[in-house]
């Protein structure tokens, strides 16, 4: 739930998504769900020469299970807040 909430704060920001099959896409984050499925708008494929067939797509839905990395601009993240939230989540789940 923590990262779902985190990604909700990044809606409308430009992000890059690298998938487990090595394809990388950039675009504006439109929405995210509890499985961390991602919907990107204004999608661009990073290595378009290698994957020409993907240039026909405008908005893209990416299944959460195939994501390797999500790259976000540093300015859009409050690292201390995130760290705090993670710490709270981990300590509160102890019996």
């Amino acid at each position, binding site marked *: 739930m923590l990262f779902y909430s985190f990604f909700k704060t990044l809606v409308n920001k430009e992000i890059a998504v690298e998938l487990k099959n*090595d394809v990388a896409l950039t675009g504006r984050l439109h929405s995210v769900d509890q499985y961390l499925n991602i919907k990107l708008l204004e999608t661009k494929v990073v290595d378009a020469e290698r994957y020409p067939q993907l240039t026909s797509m405008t908005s893209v839905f990416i299944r959460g299970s195939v994501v390797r990395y999500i790259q976000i601009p540093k300015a859009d993240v409050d690292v201390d807040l995130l760290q705090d939230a993670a710490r709270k989540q981990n300590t509160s789940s102890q019996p």
Partner: protein
Amino acid sequence: FLSFQEGRRQRREGRLEARLQAPGSMALALPAAASLVDQLDKKVLILLRDGRHLVGIMRSFDQFSNVVLEETFERRVVVSAEGKHYGDIPLGLYVVRGDAVVLLGEVSEEREAGPDHPTEVSPEEIIALEEAVHDDHQNTAGPLTLADDA
């Protein structure tokens, strides 16, 4: 299951029209929720874990990303010294299991016809091109497969 129960209750109350829910109501429960509802009845391209591309009109989906695709074509792409080409092999009505899906993109026919997009050839031609290129190891299009345990 909840919508099935709701349907049953409404059938019992004899309100047939109440069962016909607006497609947008599926995603309205959570405001910023990623949903495929905007792609319903649109032409989409699905990238599968085995590297195949399926193009078709998405008629329905569920929470597992299972998808029903009408007028499905397998889009094969060959990038070689002769340029970039693609061919669509007709497949019919498909149910795609969600765990095989990597991504699903809405196809813009404008972009399909654009200069950067590969040019369309007939199914027979693309298969012939594939074989020619396979023999010479000339296909420079990237492989898009995903390992089973990825």
